[in-house]
């Protein structure tokens, strides 16, 4: 436990009564005294504030930064405008996942990518390895950069109290450099909860000031500090994949239902041939949504079976706080992925009936008409 890293807000979390747990090499709040269910509902109905400083940020500079990004990930970044922010991932040559990322196109030919905490060193090494021959500088700016997420339908109203910048100008999946309570901040209208919201990047020494500014500004709106448990249930309902669960080096984008990220016409990128082959030949394993018919809580790692044969595994499962159903994401072989297919989840040695249902379980606010 002693070599776990702590964010600048560690003492603040403890003082708030948060329960701290190890996560991806960090000691992070899993919940506050409000509890994960209340925190989850706060984000769906009002707003939630998350310390996500464990996540990594790299800046890409240099004449070939764009060309390099085209080569290491599947999205056509030449179509991104300055201030656009988009989801993507890195693949190995065999098409399996290195990590999933968010890409920000900043002014002056700068790019920023946000990576998962657990993968910071791995991604940096992997990017460096492939940077040979490119005029690109990859800077790990994770330490001086603090990252918070403000998520939920009241997020904009709360943030607007702290800035003169008209937040209506910051469209979904774009970014802006603004002052938040006098703190120079890069905001992205991004997040990972299925709600509208912002991710904020600013100097680490302002972490406590920013946290308190936001919590104070959101008091009337019902803003709650939220831990990792709520973050997980929120992204799960929206079927947003999480590295280490739905995404890892044993699975690939087409089966993970992330083929939509790929631009096939932009030229070569690492993993393209393998991913395209899987797309054409159809993936062996597919990520499906399951709803329990029998009573029971499906959990990560539980086996999925059909007629007594184990055919797959649960990647994430829980009682959905919003839908009040027991739901799971699971990898199953193609052929068992049709909506309405009855499968069993093995819960403590007993097969419990479940049915394949449509994903996402919860339609993100930004996908609704």
């Amino acid at each position: 436990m002693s070599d776990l890293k702590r964010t600048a807000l560690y003492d603040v979390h403890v003082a708030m009564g948060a329960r701290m747990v190890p996560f991806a090499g960090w000691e992070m709040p899993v919940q506050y005294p409000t509890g994960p269910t209340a925190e989850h509902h706060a984000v769906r109905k009002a707003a939630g504030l998350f310390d996500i400083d464990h996540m990594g940020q790299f800046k890409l500079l240099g004449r070939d930064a764009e060309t390099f990004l085209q080569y290491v990930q599947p999205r056509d970044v030449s179509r991104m405008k300055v201030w656009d922010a988009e989801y993507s991932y890195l693949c190995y040559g065999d098409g399996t996942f290195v990590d999933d990322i968010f890409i920000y196109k900043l002014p002056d030919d700068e790019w920023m990518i946000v990576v998962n905490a657990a993968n910071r060193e791995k991604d940096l090494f992997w990017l460096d390895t492939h940077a040979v021959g490119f005029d690109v500088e990859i800077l790990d700016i994770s330490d001086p950069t603090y990252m918070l997420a403000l998520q939920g339908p009241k997020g904009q109203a709360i943030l607007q109290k702290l800035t003169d910048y008209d937040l209506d100008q910051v469209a979904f999946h774009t970014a802006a450099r603004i002052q938040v309570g006098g703190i120079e901040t890069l905001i992205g209208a991004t997040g990972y909860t299925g709600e509208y919201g912002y991710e904020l990047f600013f100097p680490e020494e302002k972490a406590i000031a920013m946290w308190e500014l936001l919590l104070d500004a959101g008091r009337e709106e019902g803003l709650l500090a939220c831990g990792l448990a709520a973050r997980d249930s929120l992204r799960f309902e929206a079927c947003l994949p999480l590295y280490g669960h739905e995404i890892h080096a044993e699975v690939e984008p087409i089966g993970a239902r992330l083929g939509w990220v790929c631009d096939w016409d932009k030229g070569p990128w690492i993993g393209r041939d393998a991913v395209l082959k899987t797309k054409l030949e159809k993936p062996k394993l597919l990520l499906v949504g399951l709803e329990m018919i029998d009573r029971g809580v499906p959990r990560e790692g539980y086996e999925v079976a059909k007629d007594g044969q184990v055919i797959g595994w649960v990647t994430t499962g829980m009682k959905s706080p919003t839908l009040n159903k027991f739901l799971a994401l699971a990898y199953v072989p193609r052929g068992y992925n049709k909506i309405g297919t009855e499968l069993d989840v093995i819960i403590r040695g007993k097969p419990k009936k479940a049915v394949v249902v449509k994903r996402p379980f919860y339609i993100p606010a930004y996908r609704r008409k």
Partner: protein
Amino acid sequence: MSLKYDPNVKYAKTDEWARVEGDLVVVGISDYAQDQLSDIVYVELPEVGAQVSAGEVVGTVESVKAAADIMSPVSGEIVEVNEELNDSPELLNEDPYGAWIFKVKPNDLAELDNLMTAEEYEAYNATREH
């Protein structure tokens, strides 16, 4: 935020409480247990009519975080379960000493002597803090 200890129940090391009501023993989980588990989302109730021995796993409580076995603190026959928990498992969080899980017709009430008093259980929990 301090945890509640009910002087009218006895406690098992596995965090169940047992309260004598007439000739039955009523069983639930302690405030400490529900606090450790966090938000409870599912309870697998014991089977009514089952013969159980003290320390036997008879059901499961599942929270957002984890699944925990429920053990019977005494030997005997399960005579009633709290069906209300099927739809409202969160009652275990909200009122841990009011929301019972099952009732046992005990073979031998003297088995309760093996359990801890509220004071002993509180002292025991103090040694478990992490």
